[in-house]
């Protein structure tokens, strides 16, 4: 119980507190999170949204095995007391869990679920749709807000250190983003689909909140010689991944605006619905790959770009894998952005083929029309924000997929601003699919018993996959064949599970409804 004591030292006592903790309870990590720790995160923490820079959402922990997972029991639960569902991936540093909902950040003792402090952002008029999570650096923790601010809090007690504006909320930007820390850059994305706004990704000094650079996925207003065909949009609302050797940040970009009206933005609309590789020091583009040229269905390519070093085509390669919202699975060489594989992993009827660059070619007959077009996937997509997981032992990429159809309408009267059209989901079915990373072949499927899932996937070195179904349960599957080994009816899992080890005990953490649940193998009292 070092935390209550620790908090007495206040914001000036960081060093003394660190020494105290090292002497008394000796956890593996120091109190202050060094950015270099993200290169090799210790197993007693989950320092960044994806757990590490690779986006594999995979843990080396193996205390809980296929043989023992059936005994998993509740270690503790934390009730937010809010009506907002937890959609955030928890961050864990120094034995403290940071979990968010829009306007809220809680610090919780990872050993027993006790609240240490809570920060509530003042009431505001931004979009309150969800929140993906926090970020940590040294003794600071960061929260993005519905009105597109970036708040730095003292990780010890939640006091505000600084408040920076990411983008102008009055224009229609908001943020649900879990920032990504790369050395002395805090990379922050925004959303903004309801207005015709340029897509922006920004870097801030994590110490001071001073802006460092802005990357535009579509041209800033009044740019001469626009390459985007007049499109705006391409918001980078999901957390990217990072390759330290190449010094490249990989981010998926959002759909173009106006969303369903493609007539007013001819051409491919670069770099919307793309995976872009960016130098994190300068914000300059190294390469881009467009998953959906000229999208007219709201299928952003914001899904996690998963970085894997593995054999491909007979040679070791530095790969980037993405199961994209448009229903296609892509493999790229991440050093150049060159496409190596394009194949569907969910119902998709919108492309007439794949071009020489590996991009699906949109069938003009499937663009939204006055009399309606029956299109797969629906607007929610073949997958979405929910984290996939790559298991190195089996070479499987586990994806929360969605086979779905929608009807898409557009006519001139719908205009050219914001949504500019109408679409209706007809039917969708959620299914967890295990893809062979080399071919995209489905090795197994696990029915999620409902529509699109909300949960991400976590795999562990013991051969387990943790996720939630579309009904009522957290589930554990055997990674090799998808067999169910454990479940708990905690309610619909709305986030990506994480795992960590403290005091020799492995915990698996799920968000169910508006509560966090930590499971572990039983110990004798």
């Amino acid at each position, binding site marked *: 119980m070092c935390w209550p004591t620790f908090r007495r030292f206040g914001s000036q006592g960081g060093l003394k507190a660190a020494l105290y903790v090292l002497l008394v309870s000796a956890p593996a990590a120091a109190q202050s999170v060094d950015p270099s720790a993200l290169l090799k995160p210790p197993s007693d923490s989950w320092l960044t949204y994806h757990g590490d820079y690779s986006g594999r959402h995979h843990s080396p922990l193996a205390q809980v095995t296929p043989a023992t997972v059936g005994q998993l029991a509740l270690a503790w639960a934390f009730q937010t007391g809010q*009506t*907002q*569902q937890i959609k955030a991936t928890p961050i864990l540093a120094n034995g403290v869990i940071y979990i968010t909902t829009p306007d809220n950040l809680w610090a919780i003792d990872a050993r027993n679920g006790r609240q240490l402090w809570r920060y509530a952002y003042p009431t*505001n*008029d*931004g*979009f*309150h*749709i969800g929140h993906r999570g926090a970020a940590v650096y040294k003794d600071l923790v960061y929260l993005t807000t*519905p009105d597109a601010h970036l708040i730095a809090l003292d990780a010890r007690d939640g006091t505000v250190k600084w408040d920076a504006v990411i983008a102008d909320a009055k224009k229609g930007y908001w943020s649900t983003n879990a920032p990504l820390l790369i050395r002395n850059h805090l990379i922050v994305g925004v959303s903004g*689909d*309801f207005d015709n706004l340029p897509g922006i990704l920004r870097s801030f000094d994590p110490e001071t909140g001073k802006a460092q650079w802005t990357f535009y996925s579509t041209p800033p207003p009044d740019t001469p010689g626009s390459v985007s065909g007049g499109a705006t949009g391409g918001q980078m609302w999901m957390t990217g991944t990072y390759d330290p050797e190449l010094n490249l940040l990989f981010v998926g970009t959002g759909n173009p605006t106006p969303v369903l009206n493609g007539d007013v933005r001819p051409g491919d609309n670069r770099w919307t619905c793309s995976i872009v590789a960016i130098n994190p020091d300068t914000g300059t583009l190294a390469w881009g790959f467009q998953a959906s040229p000229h999208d007219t269905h*709201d299928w952003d390519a914001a899904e996690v770009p998963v970085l894997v070093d593995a054999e491909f085509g007979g040679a070791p390669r530095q790969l980037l894998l993405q199961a994209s919202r448009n229903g296609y699975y892509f493999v790229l060489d991440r050093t150049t952005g060159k496409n190596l594989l394009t194949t569907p992993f969910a*119902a998709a*009827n919108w492309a007439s083929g794949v071009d020489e660059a590996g991009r699906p070619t949109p069938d003009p*007959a499937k663009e939204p029309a*006055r*009399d*309606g*077009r*029956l299109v*797969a996937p629906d*607007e*929610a997509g073949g997958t979405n924000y929910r984290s996939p997981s790559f298991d190195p032992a089996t070479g499987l990429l586990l994806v929360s997929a969605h086979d779905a*159809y929608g*009807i898409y*309408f557009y*006519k001139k*009267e*719908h*205009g050219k601003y914001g*949504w*500019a*059209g*109408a679409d*209706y*989901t*007809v*039917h969708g*079915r959620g299914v967890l699919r295990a893809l062979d990373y080399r071919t995209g072949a489905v090795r197994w499927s696990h*029915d999620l*018993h*409902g529509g699109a899932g*909300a949960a991400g996937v976590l795999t562990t070195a013991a051969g387990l996959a943790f996720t939630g*179904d579309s*009904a*009522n*349960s957290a*589930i554990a599957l055997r990674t090799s064949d998808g067999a*169910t080994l454990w*479940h708990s*009816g905690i309610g*619909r899992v709305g986030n990506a599970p994480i795992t960590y080890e403290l005091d020799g005990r492995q915990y698996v953490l799920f968000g169910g*409804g508006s509560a966090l649940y930590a499971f572990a193998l039983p110990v004798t009292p």
Partner: protein
Amino acid sequence: MLATALACVAAPDAGAQGREQSSPASIRPAPPTAPQAYSREQIDTGRTRFAAQCGFCHGRDAAGGEGGSDLTRSALVGEDVRGDRIRPLLRSGRPDKGMPSFTMPEADLTAIVAFIHDQRAEAAAATGGRRAVDLADLQTGNADAGKRYFEAACARCHAAAGDLKGVATRYEGLPLLQRMLYPGSGGRGAGPAPKPPTVRVSLRDGRVVTGPLAYRDEFTISITDADGWRRSWPANQVTFTVDDRLQAHVEQLGKYTDADMHDVLAYLQTLR
């Protein structure tokens, strides 16, 4: 300044019973009979609160956003009188459909109700609205071709002179199209939900229980018994069959061309 928002009440024959049974033309906008007045101030406050809390899913103008329905055409909004339907729904949410519950001050709830009614009135007064799909938009099919397709693909379960007799007098336009593709997909605005499939559960002691499906996931099977009680069993302790006839609609989604879809719709429109 007072702005008048008009709420539609359900058509006379669209009460609870009517909706469950024959479902008349309740899906068509009914004439406004219960005028509801809200102050401009309330509506403006409601606009701000709605945008922040509801706008992502239902659109800032309440005419539909990502995943949420078009509230200006919602049957429930149509039946609402000064929040008597909307308010409880905001408080309870619809967890099964991903809608959270909301705790907010009474004044904010009232403002949101005011804004929704104002948007509904505005949408009803507008023609060719921003999100609207009009009946005239959907008249591109060929009824003869649709009849041939229907007889080949749909006649195993449906009959023009049987269950679908007069279907075009009950539904039209987008709700008819949604119902045709997958019953229930248009929400309450597209008529009653389809009957749940029948489940036959064989218990370990040899007894057999049948009833309409109430709930099912990987671990539980649940029916409503003849007396209206829910009965549940662990899915791995019984054997059961689910006669889900709607699965044929799901399979058809992967087979329709857009022309097929419009042709079948044109044919259904002749079934008066």
